[in-house]
């Protein structure tokens, strides 16, 4: 067990370091959400109410979710794809590092990064935009966002099963943008046509942010919201496992 923990810690630390050195992660996971937050809050106004909460709080959740989705897809997918296609993952199978430690270390590092994104975004909201909420609202929202990242980590893992890292890199960014746009993270669903609202409600990106919007508004989270997120996570994980087992059979 000690050996497992030693390997897992080393692998997680290395993954964290690699993500911090990734300019793409910084652009899509941190710089862009913070910039968009300031631009859209300034253009709409601080005192507008959306979904029962101030716009600046509502949009803070939207952009935090946007950053976490971007980090999940743009870090995990291309990296897994690259390590698999270039032989690194195959070589690792000749070492004592268990597959589970390899994958969990990536997920743990990603979770640590997401804690950082949440802390940064919430700090911007509290210190710069002076959003006042009870402390437990902040804490519960943060916990919800950490739970809600699961389907996006699963989607990143699924993208990592494809064999062209360059295509996966582009696809990850396109998916981040599409999920955010259609899921109401850039424009609230209140301003969308009815048919588009139905699309948004079916997407994990909307459900991801919806839970935290509800916490900030002091409302209960509908039961179907975590159910839909877990359903997406299950589908993405099963697809990833299926694709990897097919590739394993050909090895």
């Amino acid at each position, binding site marked *: 067990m000690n050996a497992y923990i030693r390997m897992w810690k*080393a692998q997680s630390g290395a993954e964290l370091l*690699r993500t911090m050195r990734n300019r793409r992660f910084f652009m899509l996971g941190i710089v862009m959400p913070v910039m968009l937050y300031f631009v859209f809050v300034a253009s709409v106004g601080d005192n507008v109410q959306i979904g029962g909460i101030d716009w600046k709080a509502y949009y803070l959740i939207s952009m935090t979710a946007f950053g976490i989705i971007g980090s999940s897809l743009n870090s995990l997918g291309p990296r897994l794809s690259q390590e698999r296609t270039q032989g*690194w993952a195959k*070589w690792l*199978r*000749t*070492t004592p590092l268990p597959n589970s430690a390899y994958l969990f270390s990536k997920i743990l590092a990603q979770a640590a990064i997401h804690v950082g994104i949440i802390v940064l975004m919430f700090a911007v909201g509290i210190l710069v935009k002076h959003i006042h909420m009870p402390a437990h609202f902040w804490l519960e929202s943060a916990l919800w966002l950490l739970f809600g990242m699961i389907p996006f980590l699963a989607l990143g893992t699924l993208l990592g099963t494809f064999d062209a890292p360059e295509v996966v890199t582009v696809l990850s960014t396109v998916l981040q943008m599409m999920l955010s746009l259609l899921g109401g993270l850039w424009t609230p669903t209140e301003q969308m046509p009815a048919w588009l609202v139905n699309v948004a409600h079916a997407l994990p990106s909307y459900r991801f942010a919806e839970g935290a919007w509800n916490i900030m508004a002091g409302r209960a989270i509908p039961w179907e919201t975590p159910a839909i997120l877990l359903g997406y996570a299950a589908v993405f994980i099963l697809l990833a496992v299926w694709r990897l087992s097919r590739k394993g059979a*050909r090895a």
Partner: protein
Amino acid sequence: MSPAIDLNKVTKRFGKKVAVQELSLRVERGTSMALLGRNGAGKTTTLSMLLGVSSPTEGRLSVLGGKPTDAKVRDRLGAMMQEVSVIERLRVEETIELVRKYYDKPLPLRTLLDWSGLTPHAKLMTQGLSGGQKRRLSFALALAGDPELLFLDEPTVGMDIESRQRFWETIEQLKARGKTLILTTHHMDEAERIADRVVVIDEGILKADGTLDEIRRLNRVRTMTFTAGPDVTPERLRALIGGAETAWDGRRVRLTAADTDRLLRTLIRDGADISDIEISAGGLEQALQTIWSRERKGETA
């Protein structure tokens, strides 16, 4: 003590294609073996099975007395794969440190940097390394756990002359320390330098197995080199030796034939003015060509 490697009638199929067919092989600990063959002969597939990266379709194999997928076995082996791959956004020393943590008794970082010739490049980011430097990093990573058994799959592809020299010096040191070495290569000089034993496979089937000298003796062709006097013309030589293959470099002649002794007697009997005569049995490369030639003619090795 169990052998380093034991393959018992191992077969590997990919759909209908048979990559390795009923291969049986036993390699004792502390020895070095070169696994040779043409492209697609089944060398890398055999190594993949020995490394636990893929499983045999039929047959049994053991590595260091256990299954190659067992973490305790993997802790005692190292591998340098054909594909050169390193993870990006880590420094050379960080990558080696990371991999050292996978093993119970790793070699010191400084030793690994020194043996791989990467000490001056320790602070470089891996994505900035040249192809040869990445190869050397792969070597350092293969040695990280101080392995008892080291697999080297075409290890020097892309290395410059100096790096190759340093690489083989380190391998010789490891051999002297009693490590078991399994090498695949297309460079016969490398196999001759390091291997105690040579195994030749073709289309997944074992074609020859023996010591370096035994395999060399399979060679039927010898090379005779001599300096020809002014009266020895290509026409006269052709008339004397018949169909033997000759190559002229000024007055220096290289003659390749299976029966060089008879040809030499013929030349002397005829009074041909030849001097500085050298006859060599040929190396591993010629021996392999003999094996392929027998294959084409349907003879058994």
